[in-house]
């Protein structure tokens, strides 16, 4: 069925776990995806970090039994992270399906026994992460209400089967007080090359922090900013309703999109040929290079994505660019090649993969 080395048969993932890449959502050239997650814990157990293995496994069993009454996750795929080799766990993380912590990719936090993920059609449930339960929905483009509807539905169904830990004053109780209350983290993955090139990004990011939002690099908590991709999300979770938190994010993101589009207009108007040259060089390198690091790829892809957005390059779709974002990562390349790769082999494989995709899917590039 699957290659003997791999513990994970990707064909089993609901739409390969990449439906959100299809660029079908609104504003999908600037906003790549929207994710909403809810943190919940089950009464009667210690929080994950303090719970012993037996407790965690019992909790997982209780969750699995409870899912019988949860339509949102009926026929979901259960993956036990501890049973998967590190490359497969990395793959799931690269697809934004599991957090770094759950996948045990942080050297200080190896994968825990009982760490599991239930993957449904458009929602997922992480078990034994920082909190007992992390419910999540991932959508293409700028789609906050749609994503919330999905995860909220899952939350209602699951909360009717399991006793959540809920406090009359503090709301839903979480392992870290920064998540208490609604337990809601709404975020968008957004591409802001215009603001970076016009050197306004610092002001904009500082501004949104003042408005109660926070920002991170491409892959969430603790990562750096790569390729002009930013993850914007709400900072607080307590004292505002779920609707208010979503509205806040939507308003601020709308504003940021406007600023980005304005910055792009300025770039084209004031530095047209310089920008054009820079972006076409990015495309040229991706099209012909023989070895490309991850950071280089992200930066060049950012340039190409901007070029497509500005209609300087035609014949290349946002979907193809989204696909490259995910599939040009290390674990994906190792999976593609069918073996573990060294860093230099990965860079060569990356260059080859990108060249192939640009030729096959961007054949009409002008």
């Amino acid at each position, binding site marked *: 069925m699957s290659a003997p080395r791999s513990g994970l048969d990707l064909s089993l993932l609901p739409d390969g776990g990449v439906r959100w890449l299809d660029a079908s959502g609104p504003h999908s050239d600037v906003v790549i995806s929207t994710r909403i997650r809810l943190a919940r814990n089950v009464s009667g157990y210690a929080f994950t970090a303090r719970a012993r293995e037996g407790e965690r496994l019992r909790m997982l069993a209780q969750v699995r039994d409870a899912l019988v009454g949860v339509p949102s996750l009926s026929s979901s795929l259960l993956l036990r992270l501890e049973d998967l080799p590190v490359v497969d766990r990395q793959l799931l993380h690269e697809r934004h399906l599991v957090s770094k912590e759950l996948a045990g990719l942080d050297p200080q936090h190896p994968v825990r026994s009982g760490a599991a993920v239930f993957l449904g059609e458009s929602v997922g449930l992480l078990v034994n992460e920082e909190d007992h339960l992390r419910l999540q929905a991932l959508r293409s483009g700028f789609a906050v209400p749609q994503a919330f509807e999905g995860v909220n539905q899952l939350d209602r169904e699951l909360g009717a089967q399991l006793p959540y830990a809920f406090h009359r004053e*503090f709301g839903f109780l979480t392992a870290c007080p920064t998540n208490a209350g609604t337990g809601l983290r709404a975020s968008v993955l957004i591409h802001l090359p215009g603001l970076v090139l016009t050197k306004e990004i610092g002001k904009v990011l500082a501004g949104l922090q003042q408005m109660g939002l926070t920002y991170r690099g491409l892959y969430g908590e603790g990562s750096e900013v790569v390729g002009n991709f930013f993850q914007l999300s709400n900072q607080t979770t307590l004292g505002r309703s779920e609707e208010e938190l979503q509205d806040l994010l939507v308003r601020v993101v709308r504003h940021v999109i406007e600023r980005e589009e304005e910055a792009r207009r300025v770039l084209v108007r004031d530095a047209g040929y310089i920008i054009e040259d820079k972006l076409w060089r990015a495309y040229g390198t991706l099209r012909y290079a023989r070895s490309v690091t991850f950071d280089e790829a992200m930066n060049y892809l950012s340039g190409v994505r901007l070029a497509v957005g500005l209609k300087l390059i035609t014949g290349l779709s946002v979907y193809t660019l989204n696909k490259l974002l995910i599939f040009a990562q290390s674990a994906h390349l190792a999976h593609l090649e069918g073996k573990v790769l060294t860093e230099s082999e990965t860079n060569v494989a990356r260059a080859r993969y990108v060249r192939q995709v640009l030729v096959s899917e961007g054949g009409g590039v002008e």
Partner: protein
Amino acid sequence: MLCDNCKERDAVVHLTRIVDNAVTQLHLCEKCAAAKGVETTLSVPQHPLGDILQAVQQQASTTSEDAAACAFCGATARDFRASGRLGCPHCYDAMERSLRELLRRLHGSSRHVGQRYEAPVAHLVDKPDTLHDLRDRLRRAVESEQFEVAAELRDRIKALETEPV
């Protein structure tokens, strides 16, 4: 990845800087970070949340909550200061006053105004503790030196174990 500065040791401190609207990243090992005066969590034994909690406790004079251990899981305020995470949902009751203030500082409010929740009816009825639950609680009681509680639990366990099935 290697330290950007000395290129010898592994980088463990990752800085993202936005200066003049240019975003740069710097990766440093512990030594170079210290040399450059970067405050790292490696040199400070407490979790950042722990600092806030300490300030809160001193201000609100709720230091009485400091030593108290949670009745369910045995975690103390000290544990929270070190890890930034609580032990179990009951810790919110054990450290209620300190946490109320901490939440206020973190979120600007300590009062939940979002969706309400009621646990499913089947779970509202007091279920008798299973042997597993009791054994877990006994282990935690012993670890946190709550020997009276431990003795009680031990007796309950014995009673359940010797029950004719």
